[in-house]
């Protein structure tokens, strides 16, 4: 138990936004909507947590934009996992009295600007000569190694995309909702073997925000609180050449710590939100978070087990980064979906009786891993 709860969540406009819109516009818009969701105002916020590939000092920019002068700020950027890290940091800040109302926010216009110009440049002299497009090359190498060691098949990778698309068909905010088959995924243009374009996340614009307060304060706000039962961070490398074993991620560490804090096991989880930047990533995380043994992630997703009506746990019910939205860093949108499901606001895609959700976010090239266990009740 962390003693904190998520009181409000929101997305900004998503998909392809109007020319001239900035990352900060979307961050600000999502923030205003998340505050309205729980009945708080900007003047109530005293802790800011934000990251963006387009803003070097995200919380400073966000504070100016919203007219907030926080007494606690945290612009931690560990890529797409940043916002689950922010959940951990917000819990600590609230527990130690550094702030009472924490606002976590993200925004990106990477579709509008193009991926390359929407990123703060970082050139590595040891990688640059090989012109390997990152991050996709790194994930392709990990997928190739997983296939080599465990006979994971391209069809099994494709199942992850097909499951995501089936959920997306039930989400009006999803960017891609047309039916998708395993054959479609395999026939799509290649990007970096074994990954084709349908194995890779979308490139969309968008933002999100979440308001975090003590569980006590959350109880007095207008929405049913979603409790942060456990949350943990881990990291293992920055460059793919420095990852000790391409089939084992630091999700093993973040997952074990988050489960320990929550006092839960994988068997207690009703909903899985696993960062699907590429089809290989949920397979790795299913294994590393303890939902199946190492090497069995491929068989785990076979036959639509994680899709609507499947025999396994519902996974990425918003349609994931593969079919819903992936505005550069996706982690906060996973939190938004988990909160909606735990409140019973999932509409057509509602997971019946969802009490516990696992949110796992990833950053860089399988570099940073952050896991949160969220619950509809404070204790389970």
């Amino acid at each position, binding site marked *: 138990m962390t003693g904190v709860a998520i009181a409000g969540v929101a997305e900004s406009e998503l998909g392809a936004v109007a020319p001239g819109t900035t990352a900060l516009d979307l961050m600000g818009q999502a923030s205003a909507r998340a505050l309205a969701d729980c009945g708080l105002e900007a003047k109530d916020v005293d802790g800011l947590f934000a990251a963006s590939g387009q803003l070097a000092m995200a919380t400073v920019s966000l504070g100016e934009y919203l007219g907030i002068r926080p007494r606690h700020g945290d612009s931690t950027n560990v890529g797409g996992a940043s916002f689950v890290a922010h959940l951990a940091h917000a819990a600590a800040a609230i527990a130690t009295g550094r702030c009472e109302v924490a606002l976590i926010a993200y925004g990106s216009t990477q579709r509008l600007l193009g991926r390359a110009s929407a990123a703060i440049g970082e050139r590595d*002299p*040891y990688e640059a000569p*090989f*012109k*390997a497009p990152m991050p996709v*090359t790194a994930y392709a190498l990990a997928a190739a190694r997983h296939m080599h060691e465990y006979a994971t098949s391209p069809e099994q990778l494709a199942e992850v995309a097909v499951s995501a698309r089936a959920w997306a068909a039930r989400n009006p905010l999803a960017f891609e909702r047309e039916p998708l088959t395993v054959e479609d995924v395999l026939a799509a243009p*290649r990007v970096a*073997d074994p990954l084709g374009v349908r194995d890779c996340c979308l490139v969309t614009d968008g933002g999100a925000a979440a308001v975090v307060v003590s569980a006590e304060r959350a109880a007095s706000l207008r929405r049913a609180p979603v409790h942060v039962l456990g949350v943990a961070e881990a990291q293992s490398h920055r460059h793919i050449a420095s990852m000790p074993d391409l089939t084992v991620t630091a999700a093993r560490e973040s997952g074990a710590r988050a489960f320990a804090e929550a006092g839960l096991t994988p068997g207690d989880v009703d909903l899985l939100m696993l960062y699907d930047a590429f089809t290989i990533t949920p397979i790795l995380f299913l294994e590393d978070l303890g939902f199946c043994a190492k090497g069995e992630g491929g068989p785990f997703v076979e036959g639509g087990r994680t899709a609507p009506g499947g025999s396994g746990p519902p996974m990425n019910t918003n349609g994931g980064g593969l079919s819903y939205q992936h505005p550069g860093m996706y982690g906060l949108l996973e939190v938004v979906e988990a909160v909606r499901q735990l409140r019973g606001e999932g509409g057509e895609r509602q997971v019946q009786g969802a009490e516990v959700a696992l949110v796992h976010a990833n950053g860089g090239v399988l570099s940073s891993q952050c896991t949160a266990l969220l619950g509809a009740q404070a204790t389970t």
Partner: protein
Amino acid sequence: MVSRTPLRSRPYDARVEAPATRFAEACAAERLDFQWDPLAERAVFYPRLVSPFSGTTELEWRTSAGLGVVYATTTVHHREEPPRNVALIDLDEGFRMLSRVEATGVRIGMRVQVAFNEGTPVFLPA
């Protein structure tokens, strides 16, 4: 050599050669150099000023025999260029680097040998 006036009270007066520069100079001379941590007794790559294994700042430079094994491989597809290999190579001295294998049919486990393409360390089947 340009003479420099030393700064007064400068705590570290020896100019350390930048690891990336030292590595690039070796490549230009067609040598694949790497660092060795004498305390941890293991190779360090990429080159740096501090060992991630023992914390020592006394890293030694060694020259690799350039022989290794493909740990992972992919073919990257570009709209306007021919497909290109990118691979992770495990060198026999115990370090891993990103590079490419200039061959067709590259597979995991293949033995490879370093070659230099305009100062860039690439690999060929051994």
